């Protein structure tokens, strides 16, 4: 505590010296949660296979949210998917980064007046990098991943800190969309320990 009293400590102070090393290591070992929302999930196989091969940057699709660092929101987000996204996002360990992929998470895209598509994703979870386009080409996704790597190294990718600091704001928006107590009512069905 002491001089930092009043705001949350995210890093262990004893390891402050090694912070640049940690940042470099985080940048070079982004594991993606294998959670494909919407139509952009089909853009991930070209990224993973020989042509764009993101494994050379240390990126790997990973089925477990507990081990993942990067959350790709690939395409439109419906309220039902958003519930799962929020639960998955909260299950991920810090530090965690969100890459919104395509026009739909930004402002709804072609579904801007649809009754069933969430218009602004960053009202519900923090987004670090957003790629516009419908669909973004794999080059654009690689560019977004490069951007998120740059932001991790410079410390700008702080969505996970923002989520902790402004948790009331995000929680308020989530409860407004799903109704109070949706975690207890519905998330409990698929995650018994919540």
């Amino acid at each position, binding site marked *: 505590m002491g001089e930092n009293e009043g705001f949350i400590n995210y890093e262990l102070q004893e390891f402050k010296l090694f912070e640049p090393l940690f940042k470099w290591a985080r940048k070079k070992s982004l594991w993606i949660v294998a959670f494909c929302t919407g139509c952009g999930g089909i853009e991930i196989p070209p990224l993973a296979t020989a042509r764009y091969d993101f494994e050379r940057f240390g990126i790997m699709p990973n089925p477990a949210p507990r081990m993942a660092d990067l959350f790709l929101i690939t395409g439109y987000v419906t309220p039902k998917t958003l519930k799962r996204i929020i639960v998955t996002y909260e299950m991920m360990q810090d530090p965690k980064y969100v890459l919104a992929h395509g026009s739909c998470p930004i402002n709804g895209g072609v579904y801007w*007046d649809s009754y069933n598509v969430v218009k602004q994703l960053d009202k519900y979870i923090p987004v670090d990098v957003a790629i516009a386009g419908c669909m973004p080409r794999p080059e654009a996704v690689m560019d977004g991943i490069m951007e998120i790597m740059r932001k991790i190294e410079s410390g700008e990718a702080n969505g996970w800190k923002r989520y902790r600091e402004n948790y009331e704001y995000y929680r308020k928006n989530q409860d407004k969309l799903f109704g109070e107590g949706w975690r207890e009512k519905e998330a409990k069905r698929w995650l018994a320990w919540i």
Partner: protein
Amino acid sequence: MDMNEKKVTEKVENAEQVEETKLPDTREGKLVKALIEKAPYVEGNVRRERRVEFNVPAERIHDFLELASETFEMLMQISIVDWLKEGQFEIVYQLWSVSESVHAFVRTRIPREDAKLPTVMDIWPVAETYEREAHEFFGIVFEGNPRLGPFILEPREYEKHPLRKDFNLIPYVKAIYGDDFDRYDESKTYYVI
């Protein structure tokens, strides 16, 4: 000019001939003819190769589908068209004949208010899911289907039947997702994206 006119008249004549011979002497034509002989209350025609159509009055739809299921073994889909001006729902049963390789559209129309139809679950059990979907999105009641009710959508959307043409999207979207979506403009009635 003369040549062109001749061609046009020839074409018109040919078209008339095609209209006169409604049921062609093909596999599809024979199929439709056989069905119409059994069920004289339907209108049937051949759209093209492997594609036939039937128009059935709503009160005879179950009888006709039961009859048709002898040749058309598979129910592929139940799709709904909402004709708002006429005040009607058009229900299209899409059938596939495995033995004949023919795709049939069985159309029927019912009024939009208090829309009711008998279920076809006793003919094709798979109709349960299709009828639940049609019930959820359009509010059509399929009498005899035991599992009608909230299906895919959130409960608040189930009450409104969101695929009906008179479902007003923009006030609903503004109420649910917030006022600040950027492309909305009061003065416009039509949007091009």
